[in-house]
């Protein structure tokens, strides 16, 4: 019964999307010049938080978010060269959750590159994830762009190994975003050494695209919108002309420019998070460049969730946010301005009331 309903719902939504000619996806485009054969796109889906309830039961809402993002990604035309999955397939790192998430993700057409999230990691320190998906940090080249994936959600050894009575307790603690007992994310010395070696081989005019789960910049430590060694990682990226960092974790639109490095976040397919400034008891450092996403209407289950489609036509990225139940957004690198710009709402006078958070 539910299977046929799901299928019907999928077909209905799919055909509506085709008719509308627009897709609720976030696309990233890396661009080399208008008609360059090197131009390519990729899709970027993140933060599904598949949650096991009991037996074969999973939280329906989060399942639906991932299923929808994949259905829409599969409708992209032209086809993206590949898909990035930005981390947090699971909610509590359980095998059931990773298996169920990967089963849903198996419907994606094309290759998928995965990023480790803290919800995938802190139960078994990423063992099952790596067994299914391979290394948690790696690099590859594609049509002149060098892609690097980092595991940015590590933390102090003492917190990881000595503080908690069980692996389940450790996972529960890290799964709580606003946990005063939490610990800051970091890439760590070993991966930074690896990154340095990896980048030594790459010419400085090669566009770099770096993927991490947490932002490689410091926004709000209380919710780990933060990577503790962000500056050290940024220093390794600094010698390159064009660098884009893409990250998940924050479940909201964020973008920024620090020197030569552009930052763009991904929406979650599961649920949105408030902007840190709406917590009045602590200071936070949201990039001034960011025009906030619309405030979520909880009565629309998929509102303020989404996925992205990315262009790479200038060697920088143009991120198309595909937002079910809302208006899509495009945040593209502006060569003149030297930073990402929202195509519609960047100027203060162009913003709309739902973009005001409080």
């Amino acid at each position, binding site marked *: 019964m539910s299977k046929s309903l799901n299928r019907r719902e999928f077909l209905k939504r799919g055909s509506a999307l085709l008719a509308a000619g627009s897709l609720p996806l976030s696309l990233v485009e890396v661009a080399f010049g208008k008609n360059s054969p090197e131009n390519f796109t990729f899709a970027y889906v993140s933060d599904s*938080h598949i*949650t096991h*309830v009991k037996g074969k*039961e999973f*939280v*329906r*809402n989060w399942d639906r978010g991932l299923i929808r993002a994949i259905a829409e990604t599969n409708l992209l035309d032209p086809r993206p060269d590949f898909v990035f999955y930005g981390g947090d397939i699971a909610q509590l790192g359980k095998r059931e959750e990773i298996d169920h998430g990967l089963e849903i993700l198996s419907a994606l057409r094309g290759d998928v590159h995965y990023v480790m999230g803290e919800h995938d990691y802190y139960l078994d320190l990423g063992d099952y994830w790596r067994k299914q998906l391979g290394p948690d940090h790696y690099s590859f080249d594609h049509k002149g762009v060098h892609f690097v994936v980092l595991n940015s959600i590590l933390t102090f050894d003492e917190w990881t190994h000595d503080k908690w009575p069980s692996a389940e307790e450790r996972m529960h603690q890290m799964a*709580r*975003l*606003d946990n005063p007992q939490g610990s800051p994310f970091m890439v760590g010395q070993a991966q930074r050494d690896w990154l340095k070696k990896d980048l030594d081989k790459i010419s400085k005019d090669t566009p770099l695209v770096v993927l991490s789960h947490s932002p490689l910049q410091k926004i709000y430590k*209380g*919710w780990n919108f933060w990577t503790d060694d962000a500056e050290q990682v940024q220093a390794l990226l600094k010698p390159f002309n064009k660098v884009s960092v893409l990250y998940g974790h924050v479940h909201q639109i964020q973008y920024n420019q620090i020197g030569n490095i552009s930052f763009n976040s991904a929406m979650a397919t599961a*649920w*949105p*998070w*408030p902007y840190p400034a*709406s*917590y*009045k*008891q602590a200071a936070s450092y949201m990039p001034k460049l960011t025009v906030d996403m619309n*405030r*979520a*209407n*909880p*009565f629309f289950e998929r509102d303020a969730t989404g996925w992205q489609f990315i262009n790479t036509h200038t060697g920088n990225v143009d991120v198309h946010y595909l937002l079910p139940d809302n208006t899509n957004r495009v945040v593209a690198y502006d060569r003149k301005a030297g930073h990402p710009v929202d195509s519609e709402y960047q100027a203060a006078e162009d913003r709309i009331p739902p973009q005001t*958070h*409080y």
Partner: protein
Amino acid sequence: MKTTTRPYLLLAACGIMLAGSAAADEFTKADLDRWQAEYQASVDKGEKLFHGGLKSKNTVSCDQCHPNATNIHPETYPKFQQQLGKVVVLGEMINWCIMNPLESEPLALDDPDMVDLQSYIHWERRGVALEPGKH
């Protein structure tokens, strides 16, 4: 109903007479501390309920969407909840969340758990000016 309330009223009246000279609105620093501690105990209970302590049929908890109880805006209630088409108190929206994202049973508006949840939500929002009705 009447027969049960009357004896209580009588007892209360006796109590007032027995207390004699104590003035009703005089209280000490110790009283203030105790009353604040009573409230803080409710905040602490609410904080636990908010972070997974509430009975949730699908394991989803309030803090998953509302870290530090953000994006609840208790200072704006009562307000016209446009999705419900009427003016509601905060407890009614809390119940909407319990019934929908949590797929669970709503609480009575005076249920101790409902009170504790609101103690915590308001505490995290302390210092913010009242803006009843604001969307």
